């Protein structure tokens, strides 16, 4: 298989994965977690590159360590998840930078680790992505209802006698695994672009919740492939090109919704001061937000 076809296959699988993991990240608001995790896998890649082992394995191991670290930190009183993400991000990135700077010219592919290189993915990377996709699909098909219940009504969920930690474990596991397998193609900094971007665009467009995963998968796959084509056509970095195309699709989705609902929004804004709690959001959105915040 040519390297170009391999890259296209990898980006297609990642696009499909964004329908699962991206939807979880968007609905459960774990974006900063995903961003911090993807940035902080950098030292794992550096260490394994120095030793000469599989980069993806190093990144996966380090991601596991960081998830544990973040979970511990968010248990410190007075420290929210945002703080834990910020600290772990700083720690991981600084460690990777130090390790890379200590070993110049030893073949550490710093720019590939950071911004990815879709055209250099190995068949094993594609296989790993495929495996994560299949496993995540199986797990989510089994636990989808429970995750949805916990996402939108955590108090009702707990009151119904369900345990919370299996949900958190499944969600965190799927997100972390997806972020890690995205690393070879789009790197530590842009890793979240392929996962979160399509789902965020799908959330803007989807009329119902169930539509988010399929729309996200379509946007993810087409965005990845268009980005790959653009990088070859214009001679630009492929990882950056994919990230840029997916962001453009998100902006187009916002624009489309603004045009479609423009009249309604304008009328709501003209009606003068509104109570701080509603602020132009629909009743459903306020209710969802309240459920998520509770």
């Amino acid at each position, binding site marked *: 298989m040519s390297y170009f076809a391999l890259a296209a296959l990898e980006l297609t699988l990642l696009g499909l994965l964004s329908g699962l993991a991206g939807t979880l990240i968007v609905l459960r608001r774990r974006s900063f977690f995903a961003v911090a995790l993807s940035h902080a896998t950098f030292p794992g890649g550096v260490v394994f590159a120095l030793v000469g082992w599989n980069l993806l394995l190093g990144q996966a191991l380090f991601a596991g360590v960081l998830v544990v670290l973040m979970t511990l930190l968010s248990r410190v*009183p*007075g420290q929210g998840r945002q*703080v834990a*993400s*910020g600290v772990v991000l700083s720690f991981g990135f*600084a460690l990777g930078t130090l390790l890379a700077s200590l070993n110049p010219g030893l073949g550490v592919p710093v720019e590939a680790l950071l911004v990815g290189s879709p055209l250099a993915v190995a068949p094993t990377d594609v296989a790993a992505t495929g495996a994560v996709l299949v496993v995540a699909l199986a797990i989510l098909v089994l636990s989808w209802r429970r995750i949805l219940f916990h996402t939108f009504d955590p108090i009702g969920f707990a009151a119904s006698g369900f345990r919370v930690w299996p949900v958190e474990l499944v969600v965190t596991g799927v997100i972390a695994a997806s972020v890690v397998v995205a690393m070879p193609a789009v790197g530590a*900094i842009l890793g979240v672009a392929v996962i979160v971007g399509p789902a965020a665009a799908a959330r803007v467009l989807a009329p119902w919740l169930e539509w988010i995963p399929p729309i996200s998968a379509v946007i993810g796959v087409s965005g990845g492939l268009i980005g790959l084509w653009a990088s070859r056509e214009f001679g630009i*970095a492929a990882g950056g090109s994919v990230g840029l195309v997916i962001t453009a699709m998100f902006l187009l989705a916002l624009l489309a919704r603004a045009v479609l609902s423009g009249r309604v929004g304008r009328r709501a804004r003209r009606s003068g001061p509104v109570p701080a709690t509603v602020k132009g959001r629909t009743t459903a*959105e306020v209710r969802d937000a309240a459920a998520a915040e509770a």
Partner: protein
Amino acid sequence: MTPIHALADFGPAEVFALPFMWRALLTVAVLAVAAGVVGLFVSFRELEFVSDGLVHAVFPGLVVGSAIGGAAGLLPGAAIAAILAAVLFTVIERRGGIGADAAIAVVLTGLFSLGVVLVSRQEGYVSQLQELLFGRLLTVSAAELWQIAIVATAAVLIVLVTRRAQLYRAFDAAGAEAAGLRPFAADLQLGIAVALLVVAGVQALGVLMVIALLTVPMAAARLITRGFALLIPIAILLPLVAGVAGLWLSFEWSVGSGATVSPGAVVVLLLVALYGAAAVVRLVGGARSPRRTQAAGPADAGLAGVGAGAADASPEPEECR
């Protein structure tokens, strides 16, 4: 090699008397003071993720700036990009809703992608990318130090001038709005202050490690003290200690044993280590003496006000007074 080996025998005082070490130390000191002041509101308003977004957004500005004006264009390019991004992120936060944090994630990766694509069109892609990402604390020139000082001062001034509005908004968003404070103006002023601090730190520490400066010192200070008055002094002191120790350590390391060290990374790792120590002390101390007072903190006010990142907030009430 003899002159370099002779340097290894210097004590701390002689090391920091070297012009480039002196400038690096001053840079760290300026950034520590500015980060302590601005970081207070980053922490109170839970703007850690927005700060991360601003850090990424500066990158295309740096690339365009250096393409147009070389090294002299870096700071203006970064400043323009950062201020535009501050406006953008403030608007995203204002619109709120469930999608705000995902929107920040998409915009930050999008802007960073733009930077990567622009860099990849230029000569010397890899080395340029690495220099922008990892910073160069030891090669800050006198002129750059002045630029950093001016930009950081501007950031601190914005926060100091608007501090009453910012505090009111942080602790009681609805009350501030009812009292006639314009929340969007306050948010925008704070966003621009954070953006300017990012611009000040980005050349020295690199694009991504600036986030450490914005989030870690104040997070550690809030672990160490419950007194409001002590938050800023502690948040200034911690990066200062980490900066002095980190610079000296990386000097010893690179001159003494001939290794190439990224001083910015050493400083950030020491800062994170200080945070870790504070977290461990807090955990051990917290287990010994259970909390008596549970005052409502700014995080709870933030929940009602901004909405974004609220799910990421700690479920426990903050203690801050």
